[in-house]
């Protein structure tokens, strides 16, 4: 469009051709290069930007009407002053900050994560966000898989939209409550509820609801207790076997190397003293050292309760009726976890010494999915695995064991020795 530019107009000075991929390529440039913005043969035209700063209101309306009339309004992105960044020279990649975040998340997701998601899984965030702002004609700074560096470490807490959109059970749902709390719930609290699911079929719906005792599953979260218990778990078992020899233990060094006076050398009493090369270590680690200590029993119990409550609060706890799986195939479990958007690593807990064979076989070869009996539950494993799956019997067992500590007498002697009234 003629306006404030000098030289021949753009539309007269260029010959355009459609390339095989469907883009527009400059086939030849007529006239001087001064009026043609430095375009050469072979350049592919992706878009054109108009700066509305010096134009009058009528001119702007004329331009917009032209674009409307020819049906180009979908390809147009209108920028307001808020959208513009400091330099006017980068007009083509300016978007609102929320859109830029979405775009960069989008491209990261597409580049790294989309490959691992199954095609039929619901809720593909990439597709939903592609519509709207840019239609692919404008080049963004991330362009496909090659743009990301290969040693980029994606944080594992990238938000999974599909997980976030799973609603908690409403208070008036039609599904039956499969289990009520055995112990008495305090009057000022009410039980927390979650779905009960099955592992029978990948896409089966929830069977019902389950009531969880608030003093075990809805405890106020104290991260310092979790930290203490985690450190205890790491250290009480630790035995450091670092050992160095002292000067008396190193072989040799009983004789005085040379006489005290007259030899011109420094005075020494043995060749294995710590200042000598090959001599003993004066203040080194000595022998197997242990770092054993015990936290009070109630602190460890409280740690377990807090871990369970935080798993429930963050939607990472699932209750399952039994652990019966149709096939011992590990791929079935992985499919189920991906489909239901549970998370990366799963810890499955069941009561009893004999667990179903299928699930044992399936999880044997899997690294991030593990089954443990309920006696083996602990804070470190709950923090290491992202998702916790409990069976109904495991919930009952845990509530029973953990609630007893709230109303028990203190120890007179260790619980190992017989008490008349202990269960």
């Amino acid at each position, binding site marked *: 469009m003629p306006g404030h530019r000098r030289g021949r107009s753009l539309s007269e000075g260029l010959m355009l051709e459609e390339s095989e991929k469907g883009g527009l390529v400059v086939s030849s440039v007529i006239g001087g290069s001064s009026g043609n913005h430095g375009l050469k043969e072979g350049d592919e035209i992706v878009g054109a930007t108009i700066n509305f700063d010096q134009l009058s209101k009528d001119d702007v309306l004329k331009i917009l009407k032209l674009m409307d009339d020819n049906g180009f309004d979908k390809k147009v992105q209108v920028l307001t002053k808020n959208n513009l960044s400091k330099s006017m020279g980068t007009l083509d990649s300016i978007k609102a900050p929320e859109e830029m975040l979405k775009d960069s998340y989008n491209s990261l997701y597409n580049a790294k994560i989309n490959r691992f998601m199954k095609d039929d899984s619901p809720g593909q965030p990439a597709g939903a966000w592609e519509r709207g702002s840019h239609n692919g004609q404008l080049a963004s700074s991330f362009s496909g898989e090659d743009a990301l560096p290969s040693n980029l470490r994606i944080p594992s807490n990238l938000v999974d939209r599909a997980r976030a959109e799973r609603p908690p059970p409403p208070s008036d749902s039609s599904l039956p409550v499969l289990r009520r709390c055995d112990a008495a719930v305090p009057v000022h609290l009410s039980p927390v509820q979650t779905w009960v699911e099955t592992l029978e079929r990948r896409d089966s719906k929830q069977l019902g609801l389950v009531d969880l005792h608030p003093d075990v599953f809805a405890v106020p979260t104290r991260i310092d207790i979790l930290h203490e218990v985690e450190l205890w*778990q790491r250290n*009480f*078992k630790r*035995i450091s076997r670092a050992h160095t020899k*002292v000067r*008396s*233990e190193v072989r040799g060094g009983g004789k005085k190397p040379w006489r005290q006076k007259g030899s011109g050398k420094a005075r020494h009493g043995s060749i294995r003293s710590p200042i000598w090369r090959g001599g003993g270590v004066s203040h080194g680690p*000595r*022998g*197997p*050292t*242990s*770092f*054993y*200590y*015990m936290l009070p*029993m109630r602190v*460890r*119990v409280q740690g*377990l309760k807090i871990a369970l409550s935080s798993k429930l609060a963050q939607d990472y706890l699932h209750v399952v009726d039994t652990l019966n799986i149709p096939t011992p195939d590990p791929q079935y479990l992985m499919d189920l976890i991906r489909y239901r958007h549970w998370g990366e*690593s799963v810890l499955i807990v069941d009561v009893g010494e004999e667990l179903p064979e299928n699930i044992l076989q399936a999880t044997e070869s899997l*690294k*991030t999915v*593990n089954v*443990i009996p*309920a*006696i*083996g*539950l*602990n*804070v*470190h*494993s709950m923090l*290491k*695995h992202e998702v916790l799956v409990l069976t109904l019997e495991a919930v009952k*067992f*845990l509530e029973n*064991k*953990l609630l007893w*500590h709230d109303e028990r007498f203190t120890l007179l002697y*260790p*619980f*190992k020795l017989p008490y008349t009234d202990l*269960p």
Partner: protein
Amino acid sequence: MSLLRGLLKAGVSLCHSTLQTTRQISTGVCCLVRMNAIPELKKVDRWTEKRSMFGVYDNIGILGDFKAHPKDLIVGPVWVKGFRGNELQRLTRKKRMVGDRMMTQDKHDMEKRIRFLYRHFNRFGKHR
């Protein structure tokens, strides 16, 4: 005087040419950073059997009717399982529990060390 000036100019030009052929030496900070000597990050598998099963059965007392204690889970020398102390306490405990089974040279070294530590803790320093 003009002869001298000419000689000086010739000398300066000679110096220039010799300077251009000498080695470049820099004493800045950039040459201390050796980009080709940065080691690679070691690849650690966070999900081995040991790492994924760490901590299981640590609450065996609370959840398991108190028939076992977590200190029974510790793997190590007998005199150090479920016990924490300084070097003298550990050595005397070792002598009590395992002393009659030890090799002669080791036992002799241990007794010398106990003697030294007893004297060190009970006769020297601020805390005795």
